């Protein structure tokens, strides 16, 4: 996904303003687990992380299941998405591997795995309604533009720690406009 977003010189200044808004999709439940200690001191379940290739990943409180998708920045830069090639359910891939693709403006763009993961369930609604990727790319609820529900292992968890938080991702995308 790096390709499109980084290079289509996003002539639309609205990209940044969209990104600097708080992430809209807050419908996901927050898990309170008072009797259990999390792996890390900060509960990462409430942090969405981003890659420089413009994918996002929401790791759930169980530190095992997660949801992935493409960022609003990428969705904006891609232009009208006309088809989404969904990840193959059951596939196990390494960080950075291509797991699917989207087509927009005659371009087939790879979507890469933000961390090492296994695809549990693809968002089949995107097959019928690819434009959801443009409208609500960061919504991980039913009806949203999320790409897949996945499982991560120890390796994936380690990689997750290395990804960008929202602030860092915003700073990163701001540099792409120069």
């Amino acid at each position, binding site marked *: 996904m790096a390709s499109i977003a980084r290079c*289509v010189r996003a002539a639309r200044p609205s990209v940044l303003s969209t990104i600097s808004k708080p992430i809209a999709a807050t419908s996901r439940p927050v898990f309170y687990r008072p009797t259990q200690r999390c792996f890390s001191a900060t509960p990462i379940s409430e942090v969405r992380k981003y890659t420089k290739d413009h994918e996002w990943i929401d790791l759930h409180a169980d530190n095992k299941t997660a949801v992935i998708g493409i960022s609003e920045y990428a969705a904006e830069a891609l232009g009208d998405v006309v088809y989404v090639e969904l990840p193959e359910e059951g596939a196990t891939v390494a960080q950075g591997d291509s797991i699917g693709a989207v087509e927009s403006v*005659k371009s087939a763009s790879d979507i890469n795995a933000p961390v090492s993961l296994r695809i549990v369930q693809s968002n089949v609604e995107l097959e019928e309604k690819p434009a959801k990727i443009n409208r609500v790319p960061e919504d991980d609820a039913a009806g949203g533009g999320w790409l897949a529900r996945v499982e991560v292992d120890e390796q994936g968890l380690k990689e997750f720690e290395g990804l960008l938080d929202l602030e860092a991702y915003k700073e990163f995308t701001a540099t792409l406009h120069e």
Partner: protein
Amino acid sequence: MLLSPSRLRGLGSRVPPCSSFRPFTAAAAAAASPTSKPQVYLSRSRNPYLNLSVEHHLLQTTPPDSTVLFLYTNRPCVVIGRNQNPWLEVNLPLLSSLTARTKPGDHEPAPTTIDLVRRRSGGGTVFHDPGNVNYSVICPPESFDRDKHAEMVVRALRGLGVPGARVNARHDIVVDVDVDVDVSESDGNHGANTFKISGSAYKLTRLRSLHHGTCLLSSPNLGSIGPLLRSPAEPFIKARGVESVRSPVRNVGVGNGEFEDAVVAEFAKMYGDPDVFCEVGDEAGAVDGVEKGMKELLSRDWIYGQTPLFSFSTYPTEDDPRERPSLPSDFHLSFEARHGQLSKFTFVNASSAGHVDIPSSSSSSPLDGSRIYDVEDWTDALRSYGGTVNSQAETAGRWLNGLFGTGHAKTQLR
């Protein structure tokens, strides 16, 4: 220093054609050096599967910061986009029966069949033949721009005396011609004065961006393209994925060699003299990555099986309420296909269809699970269906053969 076209042509012939491994080892060596210079490859193969695989190999293996130009010309073929439906885009029965001309002014059809190819980039369906030269530029994502290299080709064309060439809003190259000018070469679109001569498509990966485009120079087949790209199954198919946009086309009237020289010269103006400049032939098919790519492009699972979900129905449905053309007999036939695999296949007498709920989804059809591209003859397939509608299997089967064709297996033989 800018190289003149003639100088480049000289360079091209002075450099011996690359042996199969040279272009790619050269690229690998360049990858190791901190500064990667521009690379130019000219294919002398006419095999579309090979050329697209060499292109894909260059996309995957050339240095991340290099810019690569690849020029190739294919034997006659129909090339559909990555997310398109061949049964919707192409008249497959016509495709398997037709032969194409290979030389301009060649009035006797040469015994050349027309290949069906699915490329890896997005976009719509195009026709290639030896009168069409394809250009391809691979560059780092940071410098990607959808029009930049179409503009490069436009400058090349203008230099060759095609002043009307320009890039349009769809990132294609068109020529504006005076309506009084002879339009006999056009695709039967008399009166139109803007003609498409080149179509663009893109493949974007994490590390590299690819823009490739056709350029119609002297195709002797323009009259055949229209019918070939009109599927008789179109009124019955509701497809996901990407549909083509039709445009009247025209030849530029420039020689292949002249065009190649001019494009290379414009490329060198933008990026400097090429560091690697070689010819690629059929022997490139022996290179591991190319061989693997060809195997994929030639597989029926790629050509047909990569098709996005679509539905087919002989009567108006909620999903696709269009009126349908009349059928040869009184039946209702419908199915869905994901990756070319049939599901919810129903085939009933139209008279009974009015009374019975049409999709008998509980009782699965004998055809469910079959692949459309494995069905060699629909009359046989429908006979296995049984029931009272059996008497119509012959008629309906022949009708379906006429929509979908029966030549699916042929593509694999090449």
